[in-house]
């Protein structure tokens, strides 16, 4: 039992530091309140807030730790060795906690944090449990979720918004139920993912790790290059710029889901703002961000290729328009027009601010993600000069 607990918990140093930080904040809050002559209830209120925020952050970190400790992303040597073992789902992991899913020993850290905030009105214990789950689920998305099962990623992204919205409106049962459902989906995904172990290649899903400097002999390096997409993309040379890289064209579902997600989060963020004045004040800033998205797309496209001739050269040579290049202006311009139209329609029919802004951001995002030309069409058929690595 002790052994299991020891393997599950973070290193004692981290636990000690977390405890120290909590104690320091608590002491600092009390001291500051006393010295500034605040009344005891006021001091305690400030202290509750600090203590609650710190505990929630530690709970989030613990949730993330539980995933990262099992699959240490940056311990490539460990993973390389691990891939050669006959490990199968259900067996304990040789490094860190015994299982990827949460088990009985995981009650210790969240339990202590719950005790710390037991009577805290700002951060009740249920927040701690929620934070652990959010940390765990977010880390799992970063660490293990595969492209083939991106549905879980989308569900989590929508679900976190619902958790935030429900939590802010005091519907803790809905927030916790959402997290439990997401956790159940994650457990199902884990089954499928771990069943396919060992994953193909040395890097497996750790493609983002730059493995080149970490491997020692040439044979390993060449195998790593084969398996690591990021290693290929890191070799930013003229050869890469002209290589026959196949660009994955996503289905129409992805841009639609992404646009809806943007609208959903716009709605959530504007809804959880308590004050109507603050909501009104934050609307222009949000609107600016939404209307800046077309600029972002334009910059993304121009980062691939530059125009065949500049503006003045166009005027002087009479080539005012170059359709093969100028096509990249159309979708951003159209999205701005669509965004403004949706704003005007929303105002006319009297939509609430969150709904109004959410529909605007969804419409702009839909326009930008579905508007032509697609990334690969622009990359391979656009009339641009390729941006060229120079010495």
């Amino acid at each position, binding site marked *: 039992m002790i052994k299991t607990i020891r393997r599950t918990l973070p290193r004692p140093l981290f636990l000690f530091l977390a405890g120290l930080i909590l104690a320091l904040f608590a002491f600092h809050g009390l001291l500051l309140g006393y010295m500034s002559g605040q009344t005891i209830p006021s001091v305690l209120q400030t202290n509750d807030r600090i203590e609650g925020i710190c505990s929630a952050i530690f709970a989030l970190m613990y949730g993330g730790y539980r995933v990262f400790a099992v699959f240490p992303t940056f311990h490539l040597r460990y993973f390389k060795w691990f891939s050669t073992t006959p490990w199968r789902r259900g067996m304990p992991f040789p490094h860190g906690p015994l299982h990827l899913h949460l088990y009985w020993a995981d009650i210790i850290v969240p339990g202590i944090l719950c005790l710390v905030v037991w009577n805290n009105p700002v951060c009740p214990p249920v927040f701690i449990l929620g934070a652990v789950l959010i940390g765990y689920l977010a880390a799992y998305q970063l660490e293990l979720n595969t492209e083939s099962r991106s549905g879980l990623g989308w569900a989590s992204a929508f679900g976190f918004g619902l958790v935030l919205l429900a939590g802010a409106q005091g519907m803790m049962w809905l927030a916790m139920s959402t997290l439990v459902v997401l956790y159940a989906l994650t457990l199902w995904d884990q089954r499928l993912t771990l069943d396919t172990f060992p994953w193909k290649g040395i890097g497996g899903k750790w493609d983002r790790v730059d493995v080149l400097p970490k491997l020692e002999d*040439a044979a390993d390096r*060449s195998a790593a290059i084969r398996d690591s997409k990021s290693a290929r993309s890191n070799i930013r*040379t003229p*050869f890469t710029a*002209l290589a026959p890289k196949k660009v994955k064209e996503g289905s129409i579902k992805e841009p639609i889901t992404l646009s809806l997600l943007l609208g959903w989060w716009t709605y959530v963020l504007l809804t959880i703002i308590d004050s109507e004045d603050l909501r009104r004040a934050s609307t222009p800033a949000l609107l600016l961000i939404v209307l800046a998205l077309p600029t972002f797309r334009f910059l993304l496209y121009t980062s691939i290729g530059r125009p065949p*001739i500049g503006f003045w050269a166009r005027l002087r*040579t009479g080539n005012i328009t*170059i359709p093969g290049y100028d096509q990249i202006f159309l979708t951003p311009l159209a999205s701005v027009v669509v965004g403004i139209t949706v704003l005007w329609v929303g105002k006319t029919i009297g939509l609430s601010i969150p709904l109004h802004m959410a529909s605007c951001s969804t419409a702009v995002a839909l326009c930008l993600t579905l508007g032509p030309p697609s990334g690969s069409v622009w990359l391979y058929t656009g009339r641009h*000069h390729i941006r060229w690595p120079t010495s």
Partner: protein
Amino acid sequence: MIDLINITQHYGVKPVLRDVSLSVAEGELVGVMGANGTGKSTLLKVAAGVLCPLKGHIEIDGLRRRSSVENELAIRQRTVYLAADSWLPMRTTGREFIIAVGQLYSIDLDRLIDHTQKLIELFGLEEKADSPISSYSSGQQKKVSLSAALITETPVMILDEPFAGGLDPSGILALRQVMKQLADRADVTVLMATPVPELVEQIADRVAVIHDGKILAFDTPEGLKRIAGCDGSLDETLEKLTNPRTLERIDQYLEGRNR
């Protein structure tokens, strides 16, 4: 096969290529020659797809560049371009880089590792192959670039000044032999720019002489001599074609000094 059809290219308002057309047959090695700044590198960049010409288009093996994603990918799969000042990732070793470029062109890994070793030996890079490229001399860096182009085994090669960049005599000899072998193969088409007429004379099937953004002449080395009415070296032939008064000026200068 490489077809450049009515290519016009500006740098700003300065025309660099003016309505240039050039056809390189399959299995042919064509050298592009001309004075500095006449548009040799630009012509090759246009052929390679780095630059998009203002007018005209390029066809590689009958496929039109940038006409569709599929065509462009197919062209890229069968074409490699070596830039005159090829940029290299300095922290990567030469061997890693050559293998990685081969991987971009989907060459089988075992074959790739063997071919890489052979290229390393060909260019005498054994001692440096597993060191970061930052520790290489400029000539050694050029050898790595050349190896990276050769490892792709593409049937269409566009090489901008492959013999320049500080290659030592053994490197030039090795490359010349490789180019000769490529020139003899019926399935490899090479378009190459170089300012060294002797090398071109030895390996090129035909030579395109470019001057002031236009193709002045395009023929075999012997044919060019006939056109120029010159029975000297290709060097003199070129001067006679591009700058007929140069030889006269050189004679006048030397006569003046001897007096």
